[in-house]
């Protein structure tokens, strides 16, 4: 494999009926990510279930309960590689009760595939998926109008669906939306070009995934370096070494940069940027590095090193879009632990501003409850200021989770607005 190939993470949203599993099976199969023993097992199961040929959807079968019930319960991760890129698929269930899984899969994705059954067009579920892609700020959305074989490969049907999608998605914030007609079952426009749809001039799905411009998906402007841990080797040659270890969330850092350590506000200069292979002349997101500073100042886990002239806002009260992830509903004014980068504080849900009906995008203003799989705009108050950016500008420093202190469960995911 070529050394400079990039990694692209994408999420697939759709129900069993949209052909999501078949599409993933097709991508894995046509890109030769399926081994003979897997193929043998799936062929045998297909025969036992009475299918003609190989049921591609079986390649994505997971846990015993999922196989028995024919559903996806949890996010499953799949991998395949082409000569151009390595891909990670976050395969998420599409049913309404699984919003939490879709949000999870979407949180790190470069791209989202939204599947639409050509026979049914845009349905509630499509709107839900588009909403979540927009909420989680997935940079690229690819609308896959599937099962074109069942509508006679009709260009009119396809165009109608695309305009339906464009109409409602104009209310959303997605940077790059594209669409294509396909039949995952027969492999039309998945890896190979369709011979049944001459009217479609665009590229098949895999080519699109291989060539999406993802280098600028990460924010390279605002340097944000959350400190994970402090390295103090205390051994020969490194007696006075104090390295601040972390993964650069965004931006670029170089030795000599004037920096501020937050929240203390002390200024210093970057002395070195180290890895086990030597010191670097610059580092950029998402590199894991260790940084030393010119001055001996107190820095610890939860602090953030930023450039003097480009700082996040220290805020103790802010609004966020919050997705509730747990069976126990949100408790107004109850205290939770908030985890934001490597920083942990206590937080309180001060106010539920409005909830969102993710099917109609309507705001529900007078409901102060917040249950599993619901999304709301909330006001959060924390015990100490957090160094935040808006999620739209920075997916790392604009996001947080809430943990229930009595159960230690992750109960909510927030995106700062």
């Amino acid at each position, binding site marked *: 494999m070529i050394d400079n190939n*990039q990694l692209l993470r994408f999420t697939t949203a759709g129900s069993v009926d949209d052909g999501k599993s078949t599409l993933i099976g097709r991508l894995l199969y046509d890109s030769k990510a399926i081994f003979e023993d897997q193929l043998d097992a799936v062929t045998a199961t297909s025969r036992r279930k009475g299918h003609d040929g190989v049921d591609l959807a079986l390649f994505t079968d997971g*846990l015993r309960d999922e196989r028995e019930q024919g559903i996806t319960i949890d996010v499953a991760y799949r991998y395949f590689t082409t000569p151009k890129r390595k891909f990670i698929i976050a395969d998420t269930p599409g049913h309404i009760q699984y919003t939490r899984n879709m949000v999870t899969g979407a949180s790190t994705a470069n791209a989202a595939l939204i599947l639409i059954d050509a026979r049914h067009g845009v349905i509630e579920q499509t709107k839900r998926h588009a909403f979540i892609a927009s909420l989680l700020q997935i940079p690229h959305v690819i609308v896959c109008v599937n099962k074109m074989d069942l509508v006679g490969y009709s260009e009119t049907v396809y165009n109608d669906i695309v305009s339906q999608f464009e109409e409602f998605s104009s209310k959303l914030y997605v940077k790059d939306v594209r669409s294509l007609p396909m039949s995952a079952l027969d492999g039309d426009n998945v890896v190979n070009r369709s011979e049944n749809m001459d009217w479609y001039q665009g590229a098949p799905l895999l080519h699109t995934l291989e060539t999406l411009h993802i280098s600028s998906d990460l924010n390279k402007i605002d340097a944000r370096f959350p400190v994970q841990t402090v390295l103090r080797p205390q051994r020969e040659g490194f007696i006075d070494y104090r390295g601040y270890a972390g993964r650069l969330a965004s931006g670029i850092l170089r030795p000599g940069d004037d920096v501020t350590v937050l929240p203390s506000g002390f200024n210093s200069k970057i002395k070195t940027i180290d890895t086990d292979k030597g010191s670097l002349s610059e580092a950029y997101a998402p590199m894991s590095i260790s940084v030393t500073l010119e001055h001996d100042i107190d820095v610890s886990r939860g602090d953030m090193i930023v450039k003097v002239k480009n700082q996040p806002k220290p805020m103790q009260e802010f609004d966020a879009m919050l997705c509730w992830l747990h069976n126990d509903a949100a408790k107004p004014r109850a205290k939770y632990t908030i985890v934001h980068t490597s920083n942990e504080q206590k937080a309180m849900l001060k106010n539920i501003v409005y909830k969102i009906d993710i099917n109609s995008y309507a705001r529900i203003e007078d409901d102060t409850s917040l249950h599993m799989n619901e999304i709301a705009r909330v006001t959060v108050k924390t015990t100490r200021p957090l160094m935040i950016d808006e999620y739209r500008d920075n997916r790392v420093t604009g996001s947080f989770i809430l943990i229930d202190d009595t159960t230690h469960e992750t109960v909510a995911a927030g995106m700062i607005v």
Partner: protein
Amino acid sequence: MSKYYLNYLDELESEAIYILREVWAQFENPVILFSGGKDSILVTHLAKKAFYPSKIPFALMHVDTGHNFPETIQFRDDLVEEFGVQLLVGSVQEAIDKGRVAEEKGKNATRNTLQITTLLDAIETNNVDCAIGGGRRDEEKARAKERFFSHRDDFGQWDPKNQRPELWNILNGKHFEGEHFRAFPISNWTEMDVWNYILRENIAIPSLYLAHQRDVVWRSNSWIPVSEHLKLEEGEKVENRKIRFRTLGDITITGGMESEADTLEKIVTEVSSMKQTERGNRTDDKRSESAMEDRKRQGYF
């Protein structure tokens, strides 16, 4: 700005280092589960990078079935020496002697499932609150559902339907006393990624991975190495073949394949044209469609 992106191996490396540092920051007494296989060797090397210039801050924990390749044990001891880390051993043989577990009986008896009790005992007696493993999501369908930080209850059990959601890269390692976590820093690596990285970084691996002459018998579609623990069955005959191992585990159940690949470069080429999955030669996974899921639920690696 186009030069400011990482290639896929650098991105995987950076992610793994991030996870290892989170483990160190969030837990009191984490260990690396070390089997002597390439994945746990890789995790150990990534730990060295994550904390350089400090030493690796984790002990290595080896669950020893007593059915080892001598090469694996030698390799383990050399690595412990080189990195200056502590070695903890959980012994299946001792667990049998103490009556904690009983040997399986019958033709396909192995000590594979006996490792579960031994592992959980070792975790408990050493007060381990996080065991770092080399598990990868591409290995097996139950592993495809694993989190980076995977919660285990008081009994060491995994509940795949009730896992904590893991969003962005925020990892929640909070737990009550008696519970522990498993951490999987190379979750997103495939077998091919592991080999490409080992080649790129020139990481030493046990010679068993390279093609070599060895006495073996043909059983369950692979070449099982002859050892003091192997009982020949009727009709089986010992042959000397040039083989290598694609995965390493208990010597009684790890099958080799015929190969001429005696350098890392040749292994990478060979693996890239493999037609069978990596665990296809592991008789432990052949027992049923959900063999791995069942073992994992009970507390397996």
